[in-house]
Protein backbone atom coordinates (compact mmCIF):
# COMPACT_ATOMS: atom_id res chain seq x y z
CA UNK A 1 0.00 0.00 0.00
CA UNK A 2 2.66 2.48 0.99
CA UNK A 3 5.14 1.58 -1.71
CA UNK A 4 2.37 1.80 -4.24
CA UNK A 5 1.54 5.28 -3.10
CA UNK A 6 5.17 6.22 -3.12
CA UNK A 7 5.47 5.48 -6.79
CA UNK A 8 2.13 7.06 -7.52
CA UNK A 9 3.49 10.21 -5.96
CA UNK A 10 6.77 9.88 -7.73
CA UNK A 11 5.19 9.18 -11.11
CA UNK A 12 2.93 12.17 -10.79
CA UNK A 13 5.87 14.37 -9.94
CA UNK A 14 7.97 12.92 -12.69
CA UNK A 15 5.25 13.63 -15.21
CA UNK A 16 4.57 17.13 -13.97
CA UNK A 17 8.22 17.98 -13.84
CA UNK A 18 8.87 16.36 -17.17
CA UNK A 19 6.52 18.82 -18.85
CA UNK A 20 8.33 21.72 -17.24
CA UNK A 21 11.61 20.12 -18.14
CA UNK A 22 10.65 19.92 -21.80
CA UNK A 23 9.57 23.54 -21.97
CA UNK A 24 12.35 25.03 -19.93
CA UNK A 25 15.59 24.05 -21.69
CA UNK A 26 14.14 24.40 -25.19
CA UNK A 27 13.10 28.00 -24.75
CA UNK A 28 16.37 28.63 -23.00
CA UNK A 29 18.55 27.28 -25.80
CA UNK A 30 16.58 29.17 -28.40
CA UNK A 31 17.05 32.40 -26.55
CA UNK A 32 20.75 31.74 -26.16
CA UNK A 33 21.08 30.92 -29.86
CA UNK A 34 19.37 34.12 -30.88
CA UNK A 35 21.56 36.31 -28.79
CA UNK A 36 24.63 34.56 -30.12
CA UNK A 37 23.62 35.38 -33.69
CA UNK A 38 22.94 39.00 -32.89
CA UNK A 39 25.77 39.30 -30.44
CA UNK A 40 26.80 42.70 -31.74
CA UNK A 41 23.42 44.35 -31.35
CA UNK A 42 22.37 42.73 -28.09
CA UNK A 43 25.35 42.64 -25.76
CA UNK A 44 23.34 42.76 -22.56
CA UNK A 45 22.36 39.14 -22.25
CA UNK A 46 25.55 37.62 -23.59
CA UNK A 47 27.86 39.76 -21.48
CA UNK A 48 25.82 38.88 -18.43
CA UNK A 49 26.15 35.22 -19.29
CA UNK A 50 29.85 35.46 -19.90
CA UNK A 51 30.40 37.18 -16.58
CA UNK A 52 28.62 34.53 -14.66
CA UNK A 53 31.42 31.96 -14.53
CA UNK A 54 34.34 34.10 -13.42
CA UNK A 55 32.14 36.17 -11.13
CA UNK A 56 30.96 33.10 -9.34
CA UNK A 57 34.52 31.91 -8.91
CA UNK A 58 35.59 35.29 -7.56
CA UNK A 59 32.75 35.31 -5.09
CA UNK A 60 33.76 31.91 -3.82
CA UNK A 61 37.36 32.98 -3.42
CA UNK A 62 36.22 36.12 -1.63
CA UNK A 63 34.17 34.05 0.77
CA UNK A 64 37.13 31.88 1.49
CA UNK A 65 39.32 34.83 2.38
CA UNK A 66 36.84 36.82 4.38
CA UNK A 67 35.76 34.12 6.77
CA UNK A 68 35.34 36.82 9.42
CA UNK A 69 32.22 38.05 7.63
CA UNK A 70 29.17 36.85 9.44
CA UNK A 71 27.27 34.00 7.85
CA UNK A 72 24.90 35.61 5.47
CA UNK A 73 21.27 34.80 5.37
CA UNK A 74 19.85 34.22 1.92
CA UNK A 75 16.48 35.75 1.11
CA UNK A 76 13.67 33.45 2.08
CA UNK A 77 12.63 31.13 -0.71
CA UNK A 78 9.33 32.15 -2.32
CA UNK A 79 6.45 30.02 -1.16
CA UNK A 80 3.34 30.66 -3.25
CA UNK A 81 2.13 27.13 -2.58
CA UNK A 82 2.36 27.50 1.19
CA UNK A 83 -1.13 26.15 2.04
CA UNK A 84 -0.52 23.01 -0.05
CA UNK A 85 3.02 22.69 1.21
CA UNK A 86 1.88 22.92 4.79
CA UNK A 87 -0.78 20.33 4.13
CA UNK A 88 1.74 17.89 2.70
CA UNK A 89 4.24 18.70 5.43
CA UNK A 90 1.63 17.66 7.94
CA UNK A 91 0.85 14.60 5.85
CA UNK A 92 4.51 13.55 5.65
CA UNK A 93 4.90 14.18 9.36
CA UNK A 94 2.06 11.80 10.14
CA UNK A 95 3.42 9.31 7.61
CA UNK A 96 6.74 9.41 9.43
CA UNK A 97 5.34 8.89 12.92
CA UNK A 98 2.59 6.43 12.05
CA UNK A 99 4.18 4.31 9.34
CA UNK A 100 7.82 4.93 8.55
CA UNK A 101 9.15 5.14 12.09
CA UNK A 102 7.47 1.97 13.43
CA UNK A 103 8.61 0.04 10.36
CA UNK A 104 12.13 1.41 10.60
CA UNK A 105 12.30 0.46 14.28
CA UNK A 106 11.41 -3.13 13.55
CA UNK A 107 13.89 -3.15 10.68
CA UNK A 108 16.53 -1.68 12.97
CA UNK A 109 15.89 -4.43 15.50
CA UNK A 110 16.46 -7.13 12.88
CA UNK A 111 19.46 -5.78 10.99
CA UNK A 112 22.58 -4.59 12.81
CA UNK A 113 24.03 -1.21 12.02
CA UNK A 114 26.81 -2.65 9.86
CA UNK A 115 24.20 -4.16 7.56
CA UNK A 116 22.29 -0.88 7.42
CA UNK A 117 25.46 0.97 6.45
CA UNK A 118 26.16 -1.60 3.74
CA UNK A 119 22.63 -1.21 2.39
CA UNK A 120 22.99 2.56 2.39
CA UNK A 121 26.28 2.20 0.50
CA UNK A 122 24.56 -0.01 -2.06
CA UNK A 123 21.88 2.59 -2.84
CA UNK A 124 24.35 5.43 -2.67
CA UNK A 125 26.55 3.68 -5.22
CA UNK A 126 23.64 3.59 -7.66
CA UNK A 127 23.64 7.36 -7.68
CA UNK A 128 27.29 7.54 -8.67
CA UNK A 129 26.55 7.76 -12.44
CA UNK A 130 24.38 10.84 -11.84
CA UNK A 131 27.09 12.36 -9.65
CA UNK A 132 29.75 11.66 -12.28
CA UNK A 133 27.69 13.32 -15.02
CA UNK A 134 26.83 16.33 -12.89
CA UNK A 135 30.43 16.86 -11.80
CA UNK A 136 31.38 16.84 -15.45
CA UNK A 137 28.55 19.22 -16.39
CA UNK A 138 29.87 21.62 -13.77
CA UNK A 139 33.35 21.45 -15.24
CA UNK A 140 34.80 19.35 -12.45
CA UNK A 141 36.67 16.72 -14.45
CA UNK A 142 38.57 15.41 -11.45
CA UNK A 143 35.43 15.00 -9.40
CA UNK A 144 33.79 13.21 -12.27
CA UNK A 145 36.74 10.87 -12.78
CA UNK A 146 36.71 10.15 -9.08
CA UNK A 147 33.02 9.21 -9.21
CA UNK A 148 33.65 6.91 -12.16
CA UNK A 149 36.49 5.28 -10.25
CA UNK A 150 34.33 5.00 -7.14
CA UNK A 151 31.49 3.42 -9.08
CA UNK A 152 33.78 0.97 -10.84
CA UNK A 153 35.66 -0.04 -7.72
CA UNK A 154 32.68 -0.22 -5.39
CA UNK A 155 30.57 -2.14 -7.89
CA UNK A 156 33.29 -4.77 -8.22
CA UNK A 157 35.77 -4.94 -5.35
CA UNK A 158 33.19 -3.33 -3.07
CA UNK A 159 30.77 -6.17 -3.79
CA UNK A 160 28.12 -4.41 -5.91
CA UNK A 161 28.30 -1.34 -3.79
CA UNK A 162 27.72 -2.81 -0.32
CA UNK A 163 31.23 -1.88 0.71
CA UNK A 164 32.89 1.46 0.22
CA UNK A 165 36.25 0.15 -0.95
CA UNK A 166 37.02 3.32 -2.90
CA UNK A 167 36.40 5.51 0.13
CA UNK A 168 37.86 3.34 2.86
CA UNK A 169 40.93 2.04 1.06
CA UNK A 170 41.60 4.47 -1.76
CA UNK A 171 40.44 7.60 0.04
CA UNK A 172 38.21 8.59 -2.89
CA UNK A 173 35.45 10.75 -1.49
CA UNK A 174 32.03 11.15 -3.01
CA UNK A 175 31.33 14.50 -4.66
CA UNK A 176 27.66 14.72 -3.71
CA UNK A 177 26.67 16.52 -6.93
CA UNK A 178 23.23 16.32 -8.48
CA UNK A 179 21.36 17.87 -11.38
CA UNK A 180 19.73 20.50 -9.18
CA UNK A 181 23.21 21.76 -8.32
CA UNK A 182 24.20 21.67 -11.98
CA UNK A 183 21.24 23.89 -12.84
CA UNK A 184 22.24 26.23 -10.01
CA UNK A 185 25.80 26.25 -11.36
CA UNK A 186 24.46 27.70 -14.60
CA UNK A 187 22.52 30.39 -12.77
CA UNK A 188 19.13 28.80 -12.05
CA UNK A 189 17.55 30.02 -8.84
CA UNK A 190 15.50 27.80 -6.57
CA UNK A 191 12.25 29.11 -8.03
CA UNK A 192 9.85 28.38 -5.23
CA UNK A 193 9.52 25.94 -2.39
CA UNK A 194 7.72 22.65 -2.94
CA UNK A 195 7.00 20.18 -0.17
CA UNK A 196 6.15 17.02 -2.08
CA UNK A 197 4.04 14.32 -0.55
CA UNK A 198 6.30 11.33 0.28
CA UNK A 199 9.42 12.99 -1.12
CA UNK A 200 9.52 15.95 1.27
CA UNK A 201 11.18 19.35 0.90
CA UNK A 202 12.34 20.53 -2.50
CA UNK A 203 12.04 23.48 -4.82
CA UNK A 204 11.28 23.91 -8.50
CA UNK A 205 14.91 23.66 -9.58
CA UNK A 206 15.74 20.64 -7.46
CA UNK A 207 12.56 18.88 -8.56
CA UNK A 208 13.75 19.23 -12.14
CA UNK A 209 17.06 17.96 -10.84
CA UNK A 210 15.49 14.88 -9.32
CA UNK A 211 13.86 14.08 -12.63
CA UNK A 212 17.07 14.57 -14.58
CA UNK A 213 19.05 12.36 -12.21
CA UNK A 214 16.27 9.77 -12.33
CA UNK A 215 17.02 9.15 -15.99
CA UNK A 216 20.56 7.96 -15.38
CA UNK A 217 19.70 5.83 -12.36
CA UNK A 218 20.67 2.18 -12.97
CA UNK A 219 17.09 1.08 -12.18
CA UNK A 220 15.93 3.01 -15.24
CA UNK A 221 18.99 2.28 -17.38
CA UNK A 222 18.78 -1.45 -16.72
CA UNK A 223 15.01 -1.34 -17.15
CA UNK A 224 14.41 -2.99 -13.78
CA UNK A 225 10.91 -4.34 -13.34
CA UNK A 226 8.49 -1.80 -11.87
CA UNK A 227 7.50 -3.86 -8.85
CA UNK A 228 11.11 -4.68 -8.08
CA UNK A 229 11.97 -1.00 -8.27
CA UNK A 230 9.16 -0.17 -5.86
CA UNK A 231 10.36 -2.83 -3.44
CA UNK A 232 13.96 -1.67 -3.60
CA UNK A 233 12.97 1.97 -3.18
CA UNK A 234 10.96 1.04 -0.11
CA UNK A 235 13.96 -0.72 1.41
CA UNK A 236 16.08 2.32 0.63
CA UNK A 237 13.70 4.65 2.47
CA UNK A 238 13.23 2.34 5.46
CA UNK A 239 16.96 1.75 5.71
CA UNK A 240 17.88 5.42 5.67
CA UNK A 241 15.14 6.12 8.22
CA UNK A 242 16.54 3.40 10.46
CA UNK A 243 19.98 5.02 10.30
CA UNK A 244 18.66 8.45 11.26
CA UNK A 245 15.99 7.53 13.81
CA UNK A 246 15.57 10.34 16.30
CA UNK A 247 17.01 13.15 14.17
CA UNK A 248 13.71 14.27 12.71
CA UNK A 249 11.93 14.08 16.06
CA UNK A 250 14.61 16.14 17.74
CA UNK A 251 14.59 18.80 15.05
CA UNK A 252 10.83 19.33 14.81
CA UNK A 253 10.52 18.89 18.59
CA UNK A 254 12.78 21.87 19.23
CA UNK A 255 11.31 24.07 16.50
CA UNK A 256 8.34 26.35 17.07
CA UNK A 257 7.02 26.34 13.52
CA UNK A 258 8.48 23.06 12.25
CA UNK A 259 7.32 23.77 8.71
CA UNK A 260 9.23 27.06 8.58
CA UNK A 261 12.26 25.46 10.24
CA UNK A 262 12.40 22.55 7.79
CA UNK A 263 11.91 24.86 4.82
CA UNK A 264 14.79 27.08 5.93
CA UNK A 265 17.03 24.12 6.75
CA UNK A 266 16.41 22.74 3.26
CA UNK A 267 17.31 26.05 1.66
CA UNK A 268 20.47 26.51 3.73
CA UNK A 269 21.56 22.92 3.15
CA UNK A 270 21.12 23.17 -0.60
CA UNK A 271 22.85 26.54 -0.79
CA UNK A 272 25.76 25.05 1.11
CA UNK A 273 26.08 22.21 -1.40
CA UNK A 274 25.82 24.60 -4.35
CA UNK A 275 28.48 26.99 -3.05
CA UNK A 276 30.91 24.19 -2.34
Amino acid sequence: MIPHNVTMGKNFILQAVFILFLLFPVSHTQAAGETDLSAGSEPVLSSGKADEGPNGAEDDAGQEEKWEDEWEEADALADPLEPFNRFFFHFNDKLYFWVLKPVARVYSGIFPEEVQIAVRNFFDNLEAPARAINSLLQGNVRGSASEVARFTLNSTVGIIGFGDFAGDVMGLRSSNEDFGQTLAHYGAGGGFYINWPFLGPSNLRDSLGMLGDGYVHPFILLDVDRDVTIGLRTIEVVNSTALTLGDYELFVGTALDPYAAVKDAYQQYRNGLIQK
Partner: protein
Amino acid sequence: MAQYIKQNKLVPVVLVMFLTILLFGSGIFAATAAGPMEQLQKSVDELLRILQSQELKEPDKKSERKQLIDNATNEIFDFREMARSSLGQTWDTLTSEEQDQFVGLFTRLIEQRYKGKLDAYDNQKIIYKKELINGKKALINTAVIDKDLEILIDYRLKENQGKWLVYDLKIENVSLISNYRRDFDSIIRKEQFAGLVEKMSKQLEKSDTAN
Protein backbone atom coordinates in the same frame (compact mmCIF):
# COMPACT_ATOMS: atom_id res chain seq x y z
CA MET B 1 63.02 17.12 3.31
CA ALA B 2 64.99 15.52 0.52
CA GLN B 3 64.27 18.52 -1.66
CA TYR B 4 65.54 20.93 0.95
CA ILE B 5 68.78 19.05 1.21
CA LYS B 6 69.16 19.01 -2.54
CA GLN B 7 68.62 22.74 -2.70
CA ASN B 8 71.15 23.26 0.01
CA LYS B 9 68.57 24.78 2.30
CA LEU B 10 69.13 22.43 5.16
CA VAL B 11 70.83 25.06 7.28
CA PRO B 12 67.86 27.44 7.66
CA VAL B 13 65.55 24.49 8.30
CA VAL B 14 67.69 23.24 11.11
CA LEU B 15 67.95 26.76 12.44
CA VAL B 16 64.18 27.20 12.52
CA MET B 17 63.74 23.85 14.21
CA PHE B 18 66.34 24.74 16.77
CA LEU B 19 64.74 28.11 17.49
CA THR B 20 61.31 26.54 17.85
CA ILE B 21 62.56 24.07 20.41
CA LEU B 22 64.29 26.91 22.22
CA LEU B 23 61.14 29.03 22.32
CA PHE B 24 58.92 26.23 23.53
CA GLY B 25 61.53 25.15 26.02
CA SER B 26 61.91 28.59 27.53
CA GLY B 27 58.18 28.76 28.10
CA ILE B 28 57.37 31.78 25.96
CA PHE B 29 54.39 30.00 24.43
CA ALA B 30 53.42 28.27 27.63
CA ALA B 31 52.20 31.55 29.11
CA THR B 32 49.61 32.28 26.41
CA ALA B 33 46.01 31.24 27.12
CA ALA B 34 44.48 28.27 25.35
CA GLY B 35 43.25 29.03 21.82
CA PRO B 36 39.58 28.83 20.85
CA MET B 37 39.82 25.32 19.41
CA GLU B 38 41.56 23.98 22.49
CA GLN B 39 38.95 25.61 24.73
CA LEU B 40 36.05 24.31 22.68
CA GLN B 41 37.43 20.80 22.60
CA LYS B 42 37.92 20.82 26.36
CA SER B 43 34.40 22.11 27.05
CA VAL B 44 32.76 19.66 24.66
CA ASP B 45 34.74 16.76 26.13
CA GLU B 46 33.65 17.80 29.61
CA LEU B 47 29.99 17.98 28.58
CA LEU B 48 30.22 14.56 26.95
CA ARG B 49 31.82 13.14 30.08
CA ILE B 50 28.93 14.43 32.19
CA LEU B 51 26.28 13.16 29.80
CA GLN B 52 27.85 9.73 29.63
CA SER B 53 28.58 9.31 33.31
CA GLN B 54 26.58 6.34 34.57
CA GLU B 55 26.98 7.53 38.12
CA LEU B 56 25.20 10.81 37.38
CA LYS B 57 22.31 8.97 35.77
CA GLU B 58 21.16 7.64 39.15
CA PRO B 59 17.74 9.07 40.10
CA ASP B 60 19.03 10.86 43.21
CA LYS B 61 21.66 12.69 41.17
CA LYS B 62 19.13 14.26 38.83
CA SER B 63 19.41 17.86 39.98
CA GLU B 64 23.19 17.61 40.30
CA ARG B 65 23.38 16.30 36.77
CA LYS B 66 21.22 19.10 35.46
CA GLN B 67 23.35 21.68 37.23
CA LEU B 68 26.54 20.18 35.81
CA ILE B 69 25.08 20.15 32.30
CA ASP B 70 24.00 23.78 32.64
CA ASN B 71 27.47 24.79 33.79
CA ALA B 72 29.12 22.85 30.99
CA THR B 73 26.91 24.30 28.25
CA ASN B 74 27.55 27.78 29.62
CA GLU B 75 31.24 27.10 29.04
CA ILE B 76 30.48 26.45 25.36
CA PHE B 77 27.72 28.84 24.34
CA ASP B 78 27.05 32.54 24.71
CA PHE B 79 23.32 32.03 25.09
CA ARG B 80 22.48 35.69 25.51
CA GLU B 81 24.19 36.64 22.26
CA MET B 82 22.55 33.72 20.45
CA ALA B 83 19.12 34.65 21.78
CA ARG B 84 19.62 38.26 20.75
CA SER B 85 20.63 37.51 17.18
CA SER B 86 17.99 34.83 16.70
CA LEU B 87 15.30 37.41 17.48
CA GLY B 88 16.68 40.03 15.09
CA GLN B 89 15.08 43.44 15.30
CA THR B 90 12.40 42.33 17.74
CA TRP B 91 15.06 42.13 20.47
CA ASP B 92 15.45 45.91 20.59
CA THR B 93 11.73 46.44 21.16
CA LEU B 94 11.76 44.33 24.34
CA THR B 95 12.09 45.46 27.94
CA SER B 96 15.08 44.04 29.79
CA GLU B 97 12.79 41.70 31.76
CA GLU B 98 11.37 40.35 28.52
CA GLN B 99 14.88 39.93 27.17
CA ASP B 100 15.94 37.96 30.25
CA GLN B 101 12.84 35.81 30.04
CA PHE B 102 13.51 35.09 26.38
CA VAL B 103 17.16 34.22 26.99
CA GLY B 104 16.02 31.70 29.61
CA LEU B 105 13.54 30.03 27.28
CA PHE B 106 15.92 30.10 24.33
CA THR B 107 18.72 28.55 26.40
CA ARG B 108 16.51 25.62 27.34
CA LEU B 109 15.46 25.13 23.75
CA ILE B 110 19.05 25.06 22.47
CA GLU B 111 20.15 22.83 25.31
CA GLN B 112 17.44 20.42 24.36
CA ARG B 113 18.43 20.29 20.71
CA TYR B 114 22.13 20.10 21.38
CA LYS B 115 21.81 17.77 24.34
CA GLY B 116 19.40 15.50 22.51
CA LYS B 117 22.09 15.00 19.91
CA LEU B 118 24.86 14.55 22.46
CA ASP B 119 22.79 12.12 24.54
CA ALA B 120 22.86 9.82 21.56
CA TYR B 121 26.65 10.18 21.49
CA ASP B 122 28.25 6.78 21.32
CA ASN B 123 31.96 7.34 20.97
CA GLN B 124 31.70 8.80 17.50
CA LYS B 125 34.93 10.32 16.39
CA ILE B 126 35.06 14.11 16.61
CA ILE B 127 37.72 15.73 14.48
CA TYR B 128 38.81 19.29 15.19
CA LYS B 129 40.02 20.25 11.75
CA LYS B 130 40.98 23.87 11.61
CA GLU B 131 40.75 27.14 13.52
CA LEU B 132 40.84 30.60 12.01
CA ILE B 133 41.36 33.49 14.40
CA ASN B 134 41.18 37.20 13.79
CA GLY B 135 41.24 39.42 16.86
CA LYS B 136 38.28 38.51 18.99
CA LYS B 137 36.57 36.27 16.46
CA ALA B 138 37.21 32.70 15.43
CA LEU B 139 35.86 30.04 13.12
CA ILE B 140 36.42 26.37 13.90
CA ASN B 141 35.80 23.55 11.45
CA THR B 142 35.01 20.19 12.97
CA ALA B 143 33.55 16.92 11.76
CA VAL B 144 31.81 14.07 13.46
CA ILE B 145 32.14 10.61 11.97
CA ASP B 146 28.78 8.98 12.54
CA LYS B 147 27.89 5.61 11.05
CA ASP B 148 30.65 5.94 8.48
CA LEU B 149 29.47 9.38 7.36
CA GLU B 150 31.27 12.64 7.93
CA ILE B 151 29.02 15.36 9.35
CA LEU B 152 30.50 18.83 9.14
CA ILE B 153 30.04 21.20 12.06
CA ASP B 154 31.44 24.73 11.98
CA TYR B 155 31.50 26.92 15.06
CA ARG B 156 31.71 30.69 15.28
CA LEU B 157 33.22 32.03 18.49
CA LYS B 158 33.81 35.36 20.12
CA GLU B 159 36.41 36.07 22.78
CA ASN B 160 35.59 37.86 25.99
CA GLN B 161 38.29 38.22 28.63
CA GLY B 162 40.26 35.24 27.40
CA LYS B 163 37.18 33.05 27.13
CA TRP B 164 35.96 31.88 23.75
CA LEU B 165 32.24 31.24 23.47
CA VAL B 166 30.18 29.92 20.56
CA TYR B 167 27.57 32.32 19.18
CA ASP B 168 26.51 30.30 16.12
CA LEU B 169 27.17 26.92 14.58
CA LYS B 170 26.51 25.30 11.25
CA ILE B 171 25.67 21.64 10.91
CA GLU B 172 26.00 20.58 7.28
CA ASN B 173 25.82 24.25 6.31
CA VAL B 174 22.63 24.93 8.22
CA SER B 175 23.18 27.76 10.67
CA LEU B 176 21.42 27.26 13.97
CA ILE B 177 20.80 30.98 14.49
CA SER B 178 19.55 31.67 10.96
CA ASN B 179 17.26 28.69 11.26
CA TYR B 180 15.79 29.87 14.55
CA ARG B 181 15.47 33.40 13.20
CA ARG B 182 13.23 32.12 10.37
CA ASP B 183 11.39 29.88 12.77
CA PHE B 184 10.74 32.66 15.34
CA ASP B 185 9.94 35.16 12.62
CA SER B 186 7.23 32.91 11.26
CA ILE B 187 5.53 32.96 14.70
CA ILE B 188 6.15 36.64 15.48
CA ARG B 189 4.63 37.78 12.21
CA LYS B 190 1.31 36.20 13.14
CA GLU B 191 1.27 36.19 16.92
CA GLN B 192 3.83 38.80 18.00
CA PHE B 193 6.40 38.29 20.73
CA ALA B 194 3.79 37.24 23.31
CA GLY B 195 2.69 34.39 21.05
CA LEU B 196 6.29 33.29 20.63
CA VAL B 197 6.90 33.14 24.38
CA GLU B 198 3.73 31.17 24.88
CA LYS B 199 4.69 28.67 22.17
CA MET B 200 8.19 28.27 23.56
CA SER B 201 6.92 27.60 27.09
CA LYS B 202 4.45 25.05 25.80
CA GLN B 203 7.05 23.33 23.64
CA LEU B 204 9.46 23.05 26.56
CA GLU B 205 6.77 21.76 28.88
CA LYS B 206 5.82 19.12 26.36
CA SER B 207 9.35 17.79 26.01
CA ASP B 208 9.98 18.01 29.76
CA THR B 209 7.11 15.65 30.41
CA ALA B 210 8.26 13.42 27.59
CA ASN B 211 11.68 12.98 29.17
